[in-house]
């Protein structure tokens, strides 16, 4: 046995790190389950049919950025038109697709070129053409050069004439019943500026007339693992509702109030534009002392296509982590800053400590355990026990999430699906989890490699925050003078 006293302190550090993270996750899980319970109670008290019978509801705009989505786009638009909520506008933004997506839309919906009379409130790359459908006049298609999702969303916001818009991915399907019950809570509080909702994996579900008719199980193991991850992460996000608000809203389905988004200059050129905009909103609202709220609804509303190969999943996870690091770096001023309230003292630091750096510490933790075992500092049985306890915690966590699902929305109707999910939540710790750590570490490496560019973008984002603050101050001065 080798005597290394400093190893004791290293052990204490790792123990403290993982204990603090897991404790916070436990608290979030508890708060998340409370939120699910309250929402479930609220749903039973509401007569949703009134929403559908109403003759004078506000119109809601769906913005669908599209890049080479010929496989999905028609189904997605059809799904949106099939929603029983009558008052909607669909804006599809073709981000320079090189496939037949735009041609398909032109043919299917008889698109007619219309003059671009929309005000450019957020600067975007020049728009090539604007179309409107002859068959469904509520469909508007914008054709522009390929610049990225953020720019497409900004172009869509310029065309949007309604106070609220929903960002939805071109491979995402919305659950009709889920959307009906979401309309009231999203539109009744003037302080709410951003709303997210639970998203599930589409792979394996059966669509009937482009509506989710049955929830099967992905026949692919990689998609199945994601199903579990989504379930866990969206229950966590419910918990964040009670502690300072969420840091990220899924890009596949999120609702924003248009005015604040225009004031902060729209989406920024980040890989995780959905996360960056939420942090920026928190930042600007806190700095200008504007009362606001962000919400995350537990209702499973949208079903999105998850990557089905290791390569595509790896790419997605690397990008997600790079985006997280970018967004946190852009707004590093928030960290431990009392000016931003609980968000600055707790949310931001936790996301840095518990999310951004988590793969690094987990990798180092694995290395330390293996090294200690190899050097004979810990014996074999102790080594196995540590692994079992930590994996047991993650397994328990997943199973509790499944229990919450069973007690509330019950989207997994077959016993077979549920059993497979439980089994997968056990085996995901052996291999899958380690791969995700590797991919996230790769995001870290990319962050370091592209740091110069990120610094430049950070400067742009800082400028947009400054402009937003000035604009909000101007507005409040105007209100006071009135």
């Amino acid at each position, binding site marked *: 046995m080798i005597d290394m006293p400093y190893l004791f302190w290293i052990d204490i550090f790792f123990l403290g790190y993982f204990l603090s993270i897991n404790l916070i996750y436990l608290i979030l899980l508890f708060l998340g389950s409370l939120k699910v319970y309250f929402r479930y*109670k*609220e749903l*039973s*008290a*509401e*007569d949703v*049919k*009134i929403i559908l*019978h*109403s*003759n*004078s*509801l*506000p119109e809601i705009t769906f913005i669908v950025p599209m890049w080479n989505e010929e496989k999905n786009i028609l189904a997605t638009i059809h799904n949106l038109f099939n929603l029983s909520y009558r008052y909607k506008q669909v804006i599809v933004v073709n981000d320079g697709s090189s496939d037949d997506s735009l041609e398909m839309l032109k043919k299917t919906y008889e698109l*007619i070129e*219309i*003059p671009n*009379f929309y005000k450019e409130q957020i600067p975007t790359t020049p728009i090539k053409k604007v179309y*409107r459908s*002859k068959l469904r*006049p509520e469909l508007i298609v914008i054709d522009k050069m390929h610049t990225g999702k953020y720019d497409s969303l900004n172009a869509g916001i310029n065309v949007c004439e309604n*106070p*609220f818009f929903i960002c939805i991915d071109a491979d995402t399907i919305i659950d009709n019943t889920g959307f009906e019950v979401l*309309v*009231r809570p*999203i*539109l*009744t*509080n*003037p302080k709410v500026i951003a709303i997210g909702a639970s998203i599930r994996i589409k792979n394996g579900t059966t669509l009937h007339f482009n509506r989710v008719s049955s929830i099967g199980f992905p026949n692919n193991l990689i998609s199945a693992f994601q199903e579990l991850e989504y379930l866990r992460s969206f229950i966590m996000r419910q918990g964040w509702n009670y502690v300072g608000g969420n840091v990220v809203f899924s890009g596949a389905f999120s609702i924003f109030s248009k005015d604040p988004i225009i004031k902060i200059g729209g989406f920024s050129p980040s890989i995780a534009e959905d996360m960056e905009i939420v942090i920026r909103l928190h930042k600007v609202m806190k700095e200008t002392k504007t009362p606001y709220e962000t919400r995350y609804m537990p209702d499973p509303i949208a079903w999105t296509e998850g990557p089905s190969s290791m390569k595509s999943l790896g790419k997605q996870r690397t990008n997600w982590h790079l985006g997280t690091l970018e967004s946190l770096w852009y707004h590093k001023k928030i960290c431990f800053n009392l000016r931003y309230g609980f968000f600055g003292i707790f949310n931001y630091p936790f996301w840095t400590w518990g999310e951004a750096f988590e793969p690094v510490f987990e990798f180092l933790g694995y290395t330390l355990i293996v090294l200690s075992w190899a050097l004979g500092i810990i014996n074999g049985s*102790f080594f196995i*026990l*540590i692994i*079992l*306890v930590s994996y*047991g*915690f993650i*397994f*328990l966590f997943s*199973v*509790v999430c*499944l*229990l919450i699902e*069973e*007690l509330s929305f*019950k989207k997994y109707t077959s*016993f077979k699906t*549920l059993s497979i999910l*439980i089994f997968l939540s056990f085996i995901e710790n052996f291999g899958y989890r380690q791969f995700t750590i590797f991919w996230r570490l790769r995001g870290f490496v990319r962050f370091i490699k592209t740091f110069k560019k990120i610094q430049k973008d950070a400067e742009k984002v800082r400028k947009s925050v400054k402009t937003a603050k000035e604009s909000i101050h101007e507005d409040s001065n105007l209100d006071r003078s009135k």
Partner: protein
Amino acid sequence: MSIYHILNLIFYAEILLLLLIFILIVIIHVVSPVLEKKNTKIKQRFSEIIIDYITTKKPFSKEKKFASHPEFLLQIMEDFNHRLNGENWEPLKLAIATHYLLPRARKFAKSIFWPKRNIAARCFSLAPLLEDEKQILLLVDDSKFLVRSRASVAAVQLESENGIFKSVEHMSLEYDYAYYYYSDILSQGSTKVLIFISQIPTTNENPKIHLACLSILGSKTMPFPLPFLQKDLQAKNLQIRLSALKVLLKNPQKNTSEIFLHCMNDPNEDIRSIGAMGLAQNESKDCIETLTNALKDPSWKVRLAAARSLKQMGQMDVLMQQKKENHKDAYEAAQYGMQFE
């Protein structure tokens, strides 16, 4: 106690918890479909009983089954109420509500738990009675939207002046969905309700309440004159002026065309746009000429409204005569109007 022992304990605790949760999941998964099936059967039975009463037109006599599951009865009654009205349904609804729902509603109206107050408001909205007015008014002011909105339905059906005013007041403070929800409830009220709403702007100075009233009155054509409108059409507050013009669109008065023609010279594009819409009601030479000129307006909103009005008036030739080389904007608006509006 060493770390090894603590870890061992945690591990056993984890296994125990896991086992418990597995058992719970299995029980829930097995029991809940059975319960659901049972509940569906009860609801089906309730529906059958109600349909039987409606079709046979026999007088309502006490049904013991209704008393055992009042929450299901409420749901079924609400479903029927969405689909039915008329002489067969209304007396039956009142009889069932009086026997099984209203006593419960009176009990729940002052509950500290909002789901119970919600049930009370829903019951009252099904069959509001004058004797329950006090409790309904209490619920109209509830802090929870899901309670006060349903209570407002009851107040409007009851034609309670106090309740209607409170609902208008709430509407003026609400936002988006909730605003439109109240607008819907109030605009579906009886002529008596609408007359009362049309009188509020003459006595109340609050601009938000004033706007709410205009919004309700602008949603449909009213079967009575609106004398206060003339004053609102001259109002300095732009929102009030716009809303008054929208009411005028649905309720043409004596000098409507002159007012809309006058709007076309206003610096505000929204006013000009409503003006253009309003001119569609008069096919005089003046109106057509003004609308043709409005096709060249600097604002797209006005150009489109003008194109739409010309199309509505059957003046397609005016739209077709617009040439790209003469005025690009007018040509585009005319084309757009012909294709879409």
